[in-house]
């Protein structure tokens, strides 16, 4: 940088941005506070909540006792991780082939794959619902895992493709010259170089699957219900139990919040399909 920035203007920027950042973050901070209060304290005036009430972890226990929270948490883990890994299994070969053995049609195929993502879920709600009903897939983890895998597959392929594209082709050619077969090339040369890209792809897709709230609300009810559906059950009068709702919410968003902070950069690339880097 050529010029010095005065500390004063830096302080001013910090104050303005800090205030806005605090306001954006406040709802999350507030439920974090409420989750450590009793129900009676949680509905008091905000200043009383902060300064004249005790802290307790009883709400967390109550949420588990009320409706087996851990089961729904594990459903979320199974479904989001499962759908991502399954998607990866199908996407890696496809993205690899398109990035390193491009054909005339490759670009069209990629664009077409992306276009399936543009299909509004509600447009296929009835067929999927009826198919699920007839095959006994409603309220099963397998069913929801498959659907989430399908809706995220275009993003996974697209992200992997853009990462693979950045690996220099000369290295692969060198491996081929040395007599590596296609299989060896993928396992020993490509995979180690592609691991960072694959890790971010996995991270972003777990986040997307974890927070997916159309299909999980439509296709599950109790047994296979992930946290999105479980939290929705608080929309009835139980929502007035602030402390329990807060505790359930905090546990539902905490893992993803932490993962999300680690994947900020990849998020841009993944969500804009490479249109903004």
């Amino acid at each position, binding site marked *: 940088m050529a010029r010095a920035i005065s500390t004063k203007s830096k302080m001013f920027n910090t104050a303005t941005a800090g205030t*806005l950042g605090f306001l954006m973050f406040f709802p999350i901070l507030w439920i974090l506070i409420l989750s450590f209060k009793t129900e009676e304290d949680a509905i008091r005036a905000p200043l009383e909540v902060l300064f004249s009430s005790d802290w307790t972890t009883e709400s967390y226990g109550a949420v588990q006792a009320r409706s087996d929270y851990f089961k729904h948490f594990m459903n979320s883990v199974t479904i989001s991780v499962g759908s991502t890994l399954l998607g990866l299994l199908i996407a890696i070969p496809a993205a690899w082939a398109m990035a390193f053995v491009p054909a005339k049609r490759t670009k069209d195929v990629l664009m077409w794959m992306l276009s399936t993502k*543009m299909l509004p879920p509600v447009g296929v709600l009835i067929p999927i619902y009826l198919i699920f009903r007839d095959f006994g897939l409603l309220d099963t983890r397998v069913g929801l895992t498959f659907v989430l895998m399908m809706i995220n597959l275009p993003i996974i392929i697209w992200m992997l493709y853009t990462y693979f594209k950045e690996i220099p082709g000369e290295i692969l050619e060198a491996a081929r010259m040395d007599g590596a077969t296609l299989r060896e090339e993928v396992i020993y040369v490509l995979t180690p170089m592609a691991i960072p890209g694959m890790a971010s792809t996995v991270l972003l897709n777990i986040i997307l699957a974890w927070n997916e*709230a*159309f299909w999980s*609300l439509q296709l599950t009810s109790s047994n296979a219900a992930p946290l999105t559906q479980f939290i929705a059950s608080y929309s009835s009068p139980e929502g007035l139990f602030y402390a329990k*709702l807060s505790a359930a919410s905090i546990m539902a968003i905490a893992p993803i919040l932490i993962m999300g902070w680690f994947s900020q950069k990849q998020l841009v690339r993944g969500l804009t399909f490479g249109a903004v880097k």
Partner: protein
Amino acid sequence: MATKASRSSARLMISPAVILLLGWMIIPLSMTIYFSFLRYNLLQPGSTPFAGWENYYWFFTDPSFSAAMVNTLVLVTGVLTITTIGGICFALLLDRPMFGQGIIRIMVIAPFFVMPTVSGLVWKNMFMNPVNGIFGRIAGALGMQPVDFFGQIPMASIILIVSWMWLPFATLILLTALQSLDQEQLEAAEMDGASWPNRFWFIMLPHMARAITVVILIQTIFLLSIFAEILVTTNGGPGVATTNLTYLIYVSSLLQYDVGIGSAGGVVAIILANIVAFFLMRMIGKNLDA
């Protein structure tokens, strides 16, 4: 370069993904189109006679359809306006030198990772509840009448909640675009005496134009399908005040079990989304060439 053998194995590697996506697209899509021409209600099992354009006729003449179209439009444009303008402001601010930039950015981005059902319920109960909610408390402390958010201004409340979730997305993408701007160009303009508004208007904004378009298009795709936030807060009400197209189709198909009309609505939703998708795809395609 690529040999014949590697070409055919490449085709083999792409095929599982292509077959799955093709099936995922064609099977439900053709079923939706097919159902939309049948008189088909799950509560009346038995025959499902051909109905021609009847379902479309009922769907379009249903007064809740025009309401849902208007609501969808209001919701999408409302959120787009807030998040785009807010996102530009946030991005400009976060791009400036400051202390603790990383932490501030993390706080701004956090709402994007909150699942829709949680944000809906938290805003509804902890903030917008007229008795115990924070907004109600503040109004009370100031001696004002608390606002009954979901009774008096239901759509504005939904717009506020959804904007809170999508403002981080717009900020993050616009900030990424802004950071790729050549600093020397800005400094040169400053040396030549260009004022900040001029630098913003003639250098920064054109540089961000592409990212802004992408933000608008991608958000539109997602905003057309807003569902969970409405389900947990207003259930589409009061009346149909917050029923958007997605919610209306959900009501007619899974609550009223009318497969025919629900499917006709589904076809309408697909056509709408495709119009937006057409422009988005062209932008992404252009980038692929570059």
